[in-house]
């Protein structure tokens, strides 16, 4: 299925290659570079490129391209999803998925790729099983290893692969039995000039961290399960139970995993927690313009909106900006024309604003379109959809676990047009 994999950085160096079947020459990547040249921006390279003998399916993650070489017809989503899983695994192992991290750990990277694919087919991709096969590098461990001479690899077979439930190993033991759930919701929205919502929806996930001994059988119920529009499940969840009773019933994997992801898309249910007042104008035949934005809270259910950052891609003709923030700090990069305003928290008494003048290239025509504002924010202890966990019950084991649920709301692709 996947013949070879090339990792390419933004400046076009192939810094890692791995072949599962015969060796495919690096020159196959020339087709990729050609496509990259054609696309004005590196990020605009289409994910599927055809070459005379192969197809190249690539993903772009953290300024790296993962380019896979395909020789037979494949389901594209399968390959794309797998490549993302590879990147996720690197992230998981090295803390970041960057060229430096991969080069530093090149030996582990090869070990991982060897275990994740055999003959081009995905084998072990579950993080907890991989970690038993190949121990992730930590500073402490490498020190210990160099003293004791013990290896980086488990020399026993991961037991999980032999249990009847593929995602859980047998014989798990913890002294503190804990089960934590994070309900994380991201708001994707487009707000138009006048402040009305063009489009809004919530993408939610429930991530779990389960450290429970034995074979616990959990069921998680919600106060308002009907809220969830479109739910997709971890394979451990019993689908029939959800269909009949709207209860999540499952034997959990050990460790961290994503329990469900869901969507809330009916627009009247999506609260928009911030509003923006903006006045951005460029005068005809003049080399300056005005810029004035103010941000305020709205529909935030009494919680504080924090970690606010506003990013604006200004038009090409903007040379520089002279602005004064009432709160936080701003930077303007005259090369990429990106304005970033780091605000922090909103206090309703004094709304943060950023105003000033924009210097334009003299003689250039006035920009046709006003820039869009991209906004990032966070609200702790609130699921903006109103989703609430009702209770968590455990069967099959005798001990009393410690349970916790945390809610957090974030901005996803939150865009305000001006």
């Amino acid at each position: 299925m996947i013949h070879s994999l090339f990792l390419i950085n933004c400046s076009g160096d192939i810094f890692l290659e791995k072949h599962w079947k015969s060796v495919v020459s690096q020159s196959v990547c020339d087709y990729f570079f050609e496509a990259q040249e054609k696309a004005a921006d590196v990020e605009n390279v289409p994910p599927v490129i055809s070459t005379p003998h192969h197809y190249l399916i690539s993903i772009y993650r953290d300024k790296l391209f993962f380019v896979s070489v395909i020789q037979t017809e494949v389901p594209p989503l399968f390959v794309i999803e797998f490549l993302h899983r590879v990147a996720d695994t690197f992230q998981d192992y090295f803390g970041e998925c960057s060229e430096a991290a991969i080069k530093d750990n090149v030996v582990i990277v090869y070990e991982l790729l060897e275990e994740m694919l055999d003959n081009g087919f995905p084998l072990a991709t579950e993080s907890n099983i991989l970690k038993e096969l190949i121990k992730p590098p930590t500073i402490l461990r490498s020190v210990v290893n160099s003293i004791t001479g013990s290896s980086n690899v488990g020399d026993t077979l991961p037991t999980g692969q032999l249990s009847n439930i593929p995602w859980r190993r047998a014989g798990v033991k913890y002294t503190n039995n804990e089960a934590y759930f994070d309900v994380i919701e991201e708001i994707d929205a487009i707000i138009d000039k006048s402040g009305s919502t063009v489009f809004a929806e919530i993408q939610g996930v429930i991530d779990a961290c389960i450290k429970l001994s034995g074979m616990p059988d959990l069921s998680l119920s919600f106060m308002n399960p009907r809220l969830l529009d479109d739910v997709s499940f971890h394979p451990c969840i019993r689908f029939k139970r959800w269909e009949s009773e709207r209860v999540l019933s499952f034997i959990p994997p050990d460790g961290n995993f994503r329990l469900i992801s869901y969507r809330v898309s009916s627009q009247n249910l999506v609260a928009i927690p911030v509003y923006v007042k903006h006045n951005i104008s460029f005068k005809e035949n003049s080399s300056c313009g005005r810029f004035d934005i103010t941000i305020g809270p709205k529909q935030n259910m009494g919680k504080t909106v924090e970690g606010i950052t506003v990013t604006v891609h200004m038009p090409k003709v903007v040379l520089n900006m002279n602005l004064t923030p009432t709160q936080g700090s701003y930077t303007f990069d005259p090369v990429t024309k990106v304005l970033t305003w780091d605000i922090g928290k909103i206090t309703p008494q004094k709304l943060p604003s950023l105003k000033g003048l924009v210097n334009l290239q003299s003689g250039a025509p006035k920009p046709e379109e006003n820039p869009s504002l991209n906004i990032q924010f966070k609200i702790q202890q609130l699921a903006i959809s109103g989703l609430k966990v009702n209770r968590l019950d455990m069967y099959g084991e005798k001990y009393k676990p410690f349970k916790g649920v945390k809610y957090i709301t974030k901005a996803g692709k939150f865009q305000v047009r001006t």
Partner: protein
Amino acid sequence: MPYLGSEDVVKELKKALCNPHIQADRPRYRNVIQRVIRHMTQGVDMSSIFMEMVKASATVDIVQKKLVYLYMCTYAPLKPDLALLAINTLCKDCSDPNPMVRGLALRSMCGLRMPGVQEYIQQPILNGLRDKASYVRRVAVLGCAKMYNLHGDSEVDGALVNELYSLLRDQDPIVVVNCLRALEEILKHEGGVVINKPIAHHLLNRMPDLDQWGQAEVLGFLLRYQPRSEEELFAILNLLDSSLQSSSPAVVMAATKLFLVLAKEFPHVQTDVLVRVKGPLLTACSSESRELCFAALCHVRRILRSLPGHFSSHYKKFFCSYSEPHYIKLQKVEVLCELVNDENVQQVLEELRDYCTDVSADLAQAAIFAIGGIARTYTDQCVQILTELLVLRQEHITSAVVQTFRNLVWLCPQCTEAVCRALPGCEENIQDSEGKQALIWLLGVHGETIPNAPYVLEDFVESVKAETFPAVKMELLTALLRLFLSRPAECQDMLGRLLYYCIEEEKDMAVRDRGLFYYRLLLTGIDEVKRILCSPKSDPSLGLLEDQAERPVSSWVSEFNTLVPMYSKACWAAISSLQVSESRGLEAMGTGVLSTSGSLVSENKEELQPLSDSGSFLLVPNGQLTAEQFEKTWLSLEVAHQEVLPWQGVAHPDTIQTALQMVNIQPIALSKAGVQPWKAYLSAQDGAGCLFLTELLLDPEHSQVHLSVKQSQDKTEALNSFISVLKTVIGTIVDIKS
């Protein structure tokens, strides 16, 4: 560390590997080996220390073993004689008590890409298949496939295949999936692994145990199984129901395809399935991963072909966000254009209007063309938006708008007046060939209603020497000649100058020939020129070719969840020539027809004019009969003419129907694509009221189509004309196909 040339590095490492002190100290020994691997991955040639590395594999340290195996697999093809030494060690490791070592050794042995290794690996693989550790069995099963690939074309080992089939019952789910994968490769010349009823049901029962990759692949293999009865079919669908709800988009897509294929006899089930996966697809469309998003959008477009209104209520999902890459934005614009209905048309148009001024010229033009597509239904609103865009005086925008106008005027004649009012002034802002051609065409065809048309064309004639695109010159010749017919006084002089230039000075042969052709045509007299050049100014029926009518799900289901929706099939067929079965190839051509329909229009335009304008023989459009009337008339008449024409491939009723309707031949009944025997009944009527009834019977074995025509009045001349029209149409369809 001081900088060392690669040779020095190799020497130094070689020395370190031989040093008994280092060999005795495990961490240090491993460290040296890690450095070897590091250099190897950076492309330094490390093959000269192969001997030393083979020695290093004799260790209890599993990491060290792994690294050495990695090294050996890379360099074995370069050092086949030394690699045999390595095989010895590997064979020994294949019977190590630790299953992990056994697995690793076996995998590395199968990975040695060198000739002659098969005889050594056969026995360890066979042992591995019966190993008690599932880890080893997984490796051994795939090892069978690798061994087969090393053999090349040699015969398939029946015993091995049977063993693999029996391993499909293995306890370990990954061994099961690996067996399928291995069998698929080994049996690829025989059409891959066979899925019979027991295997299919066994796999269905194992589904819940598999990981997402396994599930996705097994769903793909299950496509080969055809349930015997309706009950069995629905039992299978029930079992797989939860796959449609999986968190992995790959599984959802694979399951959707399986559902659509299995339920091909039950269109309502297919529709239900598409409704069910609407949610997961929409989630994928707004996924964090832009590549997933792109793939999902491509599939949404496929689905929209069969269920045009399917995503209409979610149209806002397809609004572009500022930070998305272009390839996603372009897909979204295409989708938006297909989602329009009475309720959302206003919002969608406003949104598209915003994209028209995007910094990216590609996106702006795509948005303008999308508005042009919507204009076929909502003409007035769209023409107004497009007219307003002209005010911006941007080259790429004006060019795209004028091109859209040209197509619109052809398809929706009612907007001609508005377009003609908008045109003056455009010529200043058009530089590219496509835009110029469109503008010149409009000026030529509708010149009599645009006051300054001759003067605009005059400017083009003045600068014709500097014109770089031959296509523009051709268009200019035709347009000026047409305009000359309606406004001779203003055009005569410049037509003369243009013809003079084209004939005497032009270097491009095609343009010169066209000039000569028109010159000679003018010599035959103005009436003749009018007869030949003045074709109808619009023909909405041509829109049928472009506006693909709703297509059944089965027309695209075989391409669902493949690379085809993301890339044109024709390219793929060329690449994987070994697996192109005939039916696939033909389908590729089918899609080719539709994807290039844009250019078809312009070709057909010229091709079909003589047909409908030949004067002496004309088919009239109102020759519609009901099926009963047709049958009655058919039975009452004698066969007037019979003929056999060449034909290739399956018949695509849509294409045929569309093509026939363009020349006013009315299909009464058509068989579905692929049905044997394929038949079609057609009726047509000429100006004199004579009916022509036709039966087409496809004979795929001899690549022929049998044609029998019956006639209500006995007129040989009309019959011959009708048959020639029909033959041209069939010829055109066959041409398109090949």
